[in-house]
């Protein structure tokens, strides 16, 4: 471990930090301008092809060009609607129309951002020890060359094959799949959506679904009221003079809305079907649970009825991220183990605020790895102990 080597270079009594970060990616990137005191974040060592914003809180795929197109189209169409149609409709029909439009627009944008920036449920890659352990198991089990890299599991009476991912060095859990664009294994992988600029998986599927549903409503809403506006105007002043009022926008708005209605409403319908049968796009395309494969083939993940399937997909519990957590890479509480003849020792706890490591209590222990130790927090006897073990203390 590199931190042990660093130990020998430091003089006791001087404030120093030994990095506890261990990365499965191998080389640790050096970020310019980073204070040497601040611990490395997990997302900075992330091996997949993703981009991170706001200190790891937001996560997207690398190619985000189409996402900006989506954003632009929605903003432009809605902007044109509010600028040109809403004043007329508010005064002639009802002020509720722009209000409802506004609420829909805010909801659509919110869901789009959530779908785009939420970690879809990326599985962290195997640590070197884990990968070696799995390799050993694979080698020992197979007698043919090359050894089979699949595992069979019985789930609710259905045999499911778990495949080995060569990039992530793990056996993929059921329903997980490896996204070649983002180079990650994603839990409950649905598909990679370029329009949203991210994979759609376990953690952001409901946002994606709500996005397309609300966008269908918004598109239909805008289309309906643009046409209403045109009809009302035509009734009063005739069709051609109604068109004269900013005519350039009509081809754009109508084309976008018309195209969107067919594609997005269709997509919403498709995903509604998927949710009600508890399938992913990936499974549907491959026909994993189709009865055409065999009479006994059925979806082992379905809860049996539509209501439970829908509730589970949309209102079920949302698991937190495993990869891009904001805590420093490494355990917060360093546990140390009991080996006599060291008659006393300590538990070291990391203070999340100041990122200092504090000694909290005495117990027989051996230090496995240490970050930095602040002298003020140590009771005298513990300080003595640390000094005798040659551990550095802050001045």
């Amino acid at each position, binding site marked *: 471990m590199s931190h042990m080597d660093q130990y020998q270079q430091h003089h006791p009594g001087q404030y120093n930090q030994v990095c506890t970060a261990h990365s499965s990616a191998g080389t640790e990137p050096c970020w310019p301008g980073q204070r040497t005191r601040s611990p490395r974040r997990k997302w900075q060592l992330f091996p997949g092809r993703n981009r991170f914003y706001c200190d790891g809180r937001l996560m997207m795929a690398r190619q985000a060009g189409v996402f900006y197109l989506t954003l632009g189209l929605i903003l432009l169409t809605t902007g044109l609607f509010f600028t040109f149609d809403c004043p007329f409709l508010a005064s002639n029909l009802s002020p509720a129309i722009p209000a409802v439009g506004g609420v829909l627009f805010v909801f659509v944008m919110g869901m789009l951002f959530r779908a785009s920036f939420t970690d879809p449920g990326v599985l962290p890659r195997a640590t070197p020890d884990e990968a070696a352990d799995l390799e050993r198991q694979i080698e020992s089990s197979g007698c043919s060359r090359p050894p089979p890299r699949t595992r069979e599991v019985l789930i609710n009476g259905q045999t499911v094959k778990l495949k080995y991912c060569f990039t992530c060095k793990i056996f993929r859990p059921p329903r997980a799949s490896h996204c070649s664009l983002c180079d990650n294994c994603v839990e409950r992988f649905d598909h990679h959506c370029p329009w949203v600029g991210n994979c759609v998986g376990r953690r952001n599927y409901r946002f994606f679904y709500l996005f397309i549903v609300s966008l269908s409503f918004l598109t239909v809403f805008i289309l309906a009221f643009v046409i209403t506006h045109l009809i009302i105007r035509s009734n009063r002043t005739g069709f051609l003079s109604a068109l004269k009022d900013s005519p350039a926008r009509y081809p754009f708005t109508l084309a976008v809305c018309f195209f969107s209605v067919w594609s997005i409403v269709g997509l919403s319908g498709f995903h509604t079907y998927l949710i009600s049968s508890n399938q992913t796009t990936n499974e549907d395309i491959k026909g994993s649970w189709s009865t055409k494969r065999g009479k006994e083939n059925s979806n082992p993940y379905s809860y049996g009825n539509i209501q439970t399937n829908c509730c589970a997909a949309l209102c*079920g519990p949302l698991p937190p991220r*495993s990869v891009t957590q904001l805590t420093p890479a490494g355990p917060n509480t360093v*546990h140390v183990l009991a080996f006599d*003849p060291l008659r006393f020792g300590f538990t070291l706890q990391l203070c999340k605020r100041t990122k200092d490591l504090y000694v909290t209590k005495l117990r027989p222990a051996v230090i496995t790895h240490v970050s930095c130790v602040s002298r003020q927090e140590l009771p005298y006897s513990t300080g003595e102990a640390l000094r005798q073990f040659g551990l550095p203390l802050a001045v």
Partner: protein
Amino acid sequence: MAETHSLQDMRQQAAVAAKVFIQRDYTKGTVCQFQTKFPSELETRIDKQQFEETVQTLNNLYAEAEKLGSQSYVEGCLACLTAYTIFLCMETHYEKVLKKIAKYIQEQNDKIYAPRGLLLTDPIERGLRVIEVTIFEDRSLTR
């Protein structure tokens, strides 16, 4: 009077002998459950029943986190109505249970596993894929 030990001695005593990985049990579907089968490498270190009890408690806690019940539905609907902004001030049920699990693992390590030269790693650090049990070399004269 404390005995003095150099850092070199300590480092040798802290050597990792092996790591055992408790894999996931997928027989109930995608719910997070770990296999309760007792690994052979731990036979000399810990009681089979004790270990199985730890894993079973963890399984129960994870099942509680992922449970589909009225509480999770209410939370989901409320979150949807507030456009998920409610999670800026409130923790999800899953996060609360994960904190409970972290505390439980720490407690188990303190009381049972550390004195035996073992260390459990919280599965969330490995993406809920495995429970990593680190076995340290036991060169102690007493205990």
